[in-house]
C-alpha cells in the first residue's frame, strides 16, 4: 500500500538524452511537508532529472515510475504535470520576447481554472508577492527574462512559484546568481510560500541556501545516480570534504 503521506515517489528512473543515458536509476521518496536537497558535481544529471520529472520532451524516460499524489506523472505532458501541481524553477530560465511577466502569469493562472489564486484578486496578490520578493513593480510589464540579470531571473522563477502555488516544487540552482541579500529574500520566500503539506526539492551546490532552508534529507548525485542520502549534516560534510572521497568509493563499487 502506498504511503498516504507520500507526495512524490520516484522509482528507479532512467533518462536518456539524445540517445545517451544520463539518469541511471534514481529513486526518491518525498513525504508531504518535506524538503530535500540534491547536490552533486557538474554534469551529474541533476537538471536532467528535473527536466525529466517536468516532462521535457527531449528527456526520454526509458524505465522507472513517477507518482505524484497518487497520479502517474509519466502519463502526462508538461502542461498536465504543472496543472497537477508540479513546478520547476529553471537553472537557466528562458527569455520570451514580447510576452510581459504579468500577462504570462495571468495566462498561467487562467489555465488553472480558478485552481489557486482567484483571478479577481490577481492584481492585489501579484503586487503583494512582488513586494515579498522585493521585485520592483516595473518588472511586471517587462518581457519575461528579457534583459534580466542572473539574479533577477531567479527571483522571477520564485515569483512564479509563489503565484502558482504548486504541490511539489523542484528548484534547480535557484540560489546561484543571487547576491547575499537576494538569497535571504528568496529563501524566505520559499519557506513562506511552500505549501505546508507539499514537497520541495532544492538542487544546489552550496550550503548557503541550506542555512536558510533546512532540508529533511540531502541526496548526493554522481554520474546519474544518487550515491548517498543523509540528513542536513551530509551537506556540511560535503562542503568540508568535496566529492573526492565519494567518487573514490563509487569507482571501487563499480570496479572502474
Amino acid at each position, binding site marked *: 500500500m502506498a504511503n498516504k503521506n507520500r507526495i512524490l515517489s520516484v522509482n528507479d528512473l532512467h533518462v536518456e538524452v539524445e540517445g545517451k543515458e544520463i539518469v541511471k536509476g534514481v529513486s526518491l521518496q518525498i513525504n508531504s511537508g518535506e524538503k530535500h536537497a540534491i547536490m552533486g558535481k557538474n554534469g551529474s544529471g541533476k537538471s536532467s532529472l528535473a527536466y525529466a520529472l*517536468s*516532462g*521535457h*520532451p*527531449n528527456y526520454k524516460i526509458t524505465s522507472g515510475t513517477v507518482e505524484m499524489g497518487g497520479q502517474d506523472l509519466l502519463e502526462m*505532458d*508538461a*502542461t498536465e*504535470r*504543472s*496543472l497537477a501541481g508540479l*513546478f*520547476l524553477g*529553471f537553472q537557466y*530560465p*528562458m527569455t*520570451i*520576447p*514580447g*510576452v510581459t511577466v504579468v500577462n*504570462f502569469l495571468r*495566462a*498561467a493562472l487562467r*489555465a*488553472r481554472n480558478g485552481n489557486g489564486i482567484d483571478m479577481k484578486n490577481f492584481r492585489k496578490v501579484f503586487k503583494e508577492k512582488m513586494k515579498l520578493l522585493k521585485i520592483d513593480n516595473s518588472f511586471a510589464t517587462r*518581457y519575461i527574462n528579457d534583459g534580466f540579470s542572473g539574479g533577477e531571473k531567479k527571483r522571477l522563477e520564485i515569483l*512564479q512559484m509563489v503565484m*502558482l502555488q504548486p504541490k511539489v516544487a523542484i528548484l534547480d540552482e535557484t540560489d546561484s546568481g543571487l547576491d547575499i541579500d537576494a538569497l535571504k529574500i528568496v529563501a524566505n520566500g520559499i519557506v513562506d510560500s511552500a505549501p505546508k503539506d507539499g514537497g520541495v526539492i532544492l538542487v544546489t551546490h552550496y550550503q548557503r541556501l541550506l542555512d536558510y532552508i533546512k532540508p529533511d534529507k540531502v541526496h548526493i548525485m554522481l554520474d546519474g545516480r544518487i550515491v548517498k542520502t543523509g540528513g542536513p549534516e551530509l551537506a556540511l560534510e560535503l562542503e568540508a570534504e568535496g566529492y573526492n572521497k565519494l567518487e573514490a568509493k563509487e569507482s571501487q563499487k563499480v570496479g572502474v
Partner: protein
Amino acid sequence: MSTLTLANKNKRFRGQNQFEPEALYSLRKESWNCFNDLDMPHRANHLWRYTDPKVLLANNPSELMKITPSLPDQTEYNLISLDEAFSGYGYNRSDYMTFAKLTPALEKSGVIFKDLLSATRENEDIVGKYLGNLIGSDFGKFEAMNLALWNTGLFLYVPDNINIELPIRLQRHPSGPNTFHRLLVVVGNNSKVTLIDDYSGECRKEEAQINSVVEIFAGDSSSVKYLNTQRYSSKCNSYITQRTRINKDAKSVSVFAGLGGNVSKTNAGTVLDGPGANSQLYGIVFGDDNQHFDYHIVHHHTSSNSYSNIDFKTVLKDNANSASTGLIRVEEDALNCEAFQVNRNLLLNEGAKAESIPELEILCDQVQCSHGATISPIDKEMLFYLMSRGVAYKDAVNIITLGFIEPTIKNFPGELETLTRELITGKMEG
C-alpha cells in the same frame, strides 16, 4: 509565355469617354502604350523571383479598358454618414463608383477628398502635377497598366498647416474580377494626416486580380501616417505598389498588415527627399493555409541627413510562404544618413516557408546602416518553459507568436494596433 501580351500588342486604346478630361485620356493612352511595349517581367528579375507575374496580370486587358469609372452618385453621397472616429471616409462600390466624404469642418478648411475621376476634372492643377509622378508608367508593366486602366480612384489634398486629428478611412473592395485602384495623396507643409487604407472583401471569380497604386507626396515638416491592411478573402490575388515621398523634416510612418488573399505582392516604400526626413516602416504578415506573400520594402535616401527604419515581421502557418526583400538605397550625394532594417520570420510548422533578403545599395560612404534577418521555427525550449507553467501547447504557441510580433505591433498607431491584433488572433484560432 506571352500569348496574351502578344495578342494585345498593337491593340489601340479605346476612345475618350464623356467623363474624362483630355489630359487624363492622353495619360491613360500613353500608359497603355507603355504597358504594351513593356515585356512581361522576367522571373530572373529580382523583384519577380518569388511570385509569378502571370498570376497577377489581368487576362483580358483590352476588355478591361472599356471599364471606366463614372462620377459618384449624388444621392448616395448625401446618405453617407461619417463615423465620429474618423475625419473622412472613402470607398468604392462593386460597380466601380467611388465615394469620398469629409467632416464639414475639414471641407471648409480647404481639404479636398473625392473620387479621383472628379479630381481630374475639378482639380486639374494639383492632379496634373502629381498623378503618376512617383509611380508612373515607367515604373513597371503592372504600374503602367494601372495608370492606363485604373477604374476606381481616390484623391486627398491637404493644404499647408492643417492638422487632421482623426484618421481618414478608405475601404477598398474588389469590383468585378479586375479592380484597378488608384490613390493620390498630396499633403502640404506642416500638415498632419493619418490614412487607414483597408483592402477587404470577397473576390467573385477564381483568382481575381487586384492592382492598386498609392502615391503620397508629403511637404516640408509634414507628418503622414499610412496604414495599409490587406485582408481579402482567399481567392483574391493582389498587387499593390505604394510610395511616399517626404520632403525636408517631414515624418512618415507606414504600416503594412498582410493577412488575407491568395497571392499577395506588395512593393512599398518611402523616398526620403529632404534633410531631416524620417521614415518608419513597420510590417506584419500572418500567413496560413496556402497563402503566398511577397513584400518588397524600399527606403530610398535621395537627401543627406535623412533617417529610416524598417521593422518587418512574418509569421507563417500551414503551407503558407513568404518572401521579404528590403532594399535600402542611399544616393551618392545623400550624406550622413541612417538606415536600419530588421526582418524576422517565425515558422509555426514544417510546411511553412520564408525567404528574407536584405538588399543594400549604398552609393555614398558616409552612412550608418544596419540590417538583420532571421528565419526560425518556434523555439522548443520556450514552449517547454510556458507549458511547465500549466499553459497548454496550443496556447503556448499563441503566446510565443503574439510575443514575436508584439515589439513591432506596439509601434502601430492605436487605430491599427487593435484591428491587427484582432485579425491575427482570429487567424491563430482558425
